[in-house]
């Protein structure tokens, strides 16, 4: 009988103990999948929602625009730049936008806020959160329309309803104050008071005229990626391209440092929670293996007397840990798959506690708690728990191999 078979049989000497320990590993898999899956899902939703709120996963702007936005800083040959972008793998869409500060005035009141001038042909509910959140009216039909879409709270404060006139005042590319008039064509409600009371959407070409921009001049190009995880790599690729030599290319971590910071903090606490769970699982395995080794001390002495080397004895106990880990991971996978399918497809609706949505890091999120695992997370969980199980078995294995046979045997 080889060591592998012997290890497997040894594992079944105490069926209940083995199954309890394997179940603790399985429970570790379930918890790790839930925690990591929640993180993968939640962070992706936050990052995507943040990107759809204006700046994209990657933002291309004139140098220093991000630090100190101004109408004086703008991009040229936008169409050419967008064509270049679409040649890269991983780019879902790109939108040319003008963004800036403005004073919105109605017959009743003036309120400061910010505007996004967008091209309706490039924007839709998938890549623009405000369009997705429209509750009344519609987006401007063309980029030259003279309509404005307001956040519901901004409209309420200005006492505006559909079809009413708004005067917006901002500065043009020379730094001169300019004003234009628009009619309310739609209202959006994101659920975030900060956004709904301060943001307006305007047609791109109309604003270009007001700011004295040419048709291919905008302040930013917001780039939406198929997968936000590639933002670093794609940003670096863009930076190397000659077309973007005189622009500033930033990823979402740079344009939304608050969001990036909050995610980093949340990830850290998530990792700590997972580490604690892992330590509990490891303690269970260590306890089982140590008990198993101590109660077989005499048997190990016999084996060593018969010629089993300390290294082989170490290998035997490590193989027992290996099979225990494999068993735990198999049970864990069987138990976790239905849970994962339910949580990734249906999820748990938390609207009773949070209402229609909630804001995190300045980003609006829905209230259905779902999980989603990236491939690398699955690999990390399985390899992590497997390695942990082996590490937890290493000390008992080392102890088994170190005891002198005469002490294990007491008498031969």
């Amino acid at each position: 009988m080889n060591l592998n078979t012997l290890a497997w049989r040894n594992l079944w000497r105490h069926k209940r103990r083995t199954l309890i320990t394997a179940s603790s590993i399985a429970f570790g898999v379930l918890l790790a999948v839930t925690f990591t899956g929640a993180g993968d899902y939640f962070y992706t939703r936050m990052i995507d929602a943040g990107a759809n709120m204006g700046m994209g996963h990657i933002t291309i702007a004139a140098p220093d625009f991000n630090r100190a936005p101004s109408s004086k800083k703008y991009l040229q040959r936008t169409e050419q730049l967008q064509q270049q972008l679409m040649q890269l793998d991983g780019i879902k869409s790109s939108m040319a936008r003008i963004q800036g500060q403005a004073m919105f005035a109605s017959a009743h009141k003036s309120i400061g806020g910010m505007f996004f001038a967008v091209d309706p042909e490039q924007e839709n509910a998938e890549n623009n959160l405000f369009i997705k959140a429209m509750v009344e009216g519609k987006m401007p039909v063309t980029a030259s329309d003279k309509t404005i879409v307001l956040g519901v709270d901004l409209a309420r404060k200005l006492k505006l309803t559909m079809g009413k006139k708004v005067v917006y005042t901002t500065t043009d590319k020379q730094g001169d104050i300019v004003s234009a008039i628009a009619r309310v064509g739609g209202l959006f409600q994101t659920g975030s008071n900060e956004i709904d009371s301060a943001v307006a959407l305007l047609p791109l070409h109309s604003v270009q005229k007001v700011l004295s921009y040419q048709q291919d001049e905008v302040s930013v190009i917001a780039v939406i990626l198929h997968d936000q995880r590639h933002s670093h790599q794609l940003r670096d690729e863009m930076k190397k391209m000659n077309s973007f030599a005189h622009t500033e290319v930033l990823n979402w971590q740079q344009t939304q440092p608050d969001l990036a910071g909050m995610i980093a903090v949340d990830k850290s606490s998530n990792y700590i929670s997972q580490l604690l769970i892992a330590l509990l699982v490891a303690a269970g395995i260590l306890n089982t293996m140590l008990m198993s080794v101590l109660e077989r001390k005499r048997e190990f002495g016999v084996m060593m007397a018969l010629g089993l080397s300390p290294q082989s004895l170490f290998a035997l106990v490590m193989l027992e840990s290996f099979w225990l880990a494999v068993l735990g991971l198999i049970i864990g996978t069987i138990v976790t798959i239905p849970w994962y399918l339910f949580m990734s497809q249906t999820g748990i609706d938390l609207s009773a506690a949070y209402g229609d949505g909630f804001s995190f890091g300045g980003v609006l999120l829905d209230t259905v708690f779902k999980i989603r695992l990236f491939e690398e997370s699955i690999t990390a969980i399985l390899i992590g728990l497997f390695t942990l199980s082996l590490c937890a078995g290493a000390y008992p294995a080392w102890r088994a191999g170190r005891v002198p046979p005469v002490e294990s045997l007491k008498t031969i």
Partner: protein
Amino acid sequence: MEQTIVELKHLSKIYQQGELELKAVNDVSLTISKGDFAALCGPSGSGKTSILNLIGGLDEPTSGEVWLDKTELASLSKSELAEVRKNRIGFVFQSYNLIPVMTAYENAAFVLELQGVDKQTQQQRVMQTLADVGLAGLERRRPDEMSGGQQQRVAIARAIVTNPAIVLADEPTANVDSHTAEALLDLMQKLNEQQGITFLFSTHDQHVIDRAKRIIQVHDGKIAGDDVRV
């Protein structure tokens, strides 16, 4: 000329118990020759088991030398000692000490497996040895399905299946009834006479003493007598 299998030269083993020094083996010199059927006899605590432990490389001497087939055991590493035990020594323990998750066949084949002997040879040797010890037909039984005598027969089969230079047997009849003890001794005597296997017992069982061809008296860690029966 008799071939020496084991030679002990001024062997001592001192155990430290707090501030007390306990001389378990005290300046023992002894040779065991090929074909011996010898018994280390003496009361409990006389040092006979300690001598067996030292010969088997299970314990390290405080001073003196243990030679096994021209190899001095103190010069070997733990792994090399394991190799010597695997290839040159067979052990029979008082309480059988079979591996409980293995069948009789697998227990007997365990050392052959460690030696890397191929499966076919393993099967031939194990089946023959189990038949030699009277266990033909019981190969698939696990230790908890066998009597004490049957378990000890498996232990003897495990000890001799590799054709070791010497079989060290510590109180091999201590846990069995007198009828079984006689049967086990018959078996070991037959293996000694027919196959030339060298046996060294540690015992205070009169059955063993009566059968041994050589009686080595151990008292307070010293050899008090060494008689060969003709």
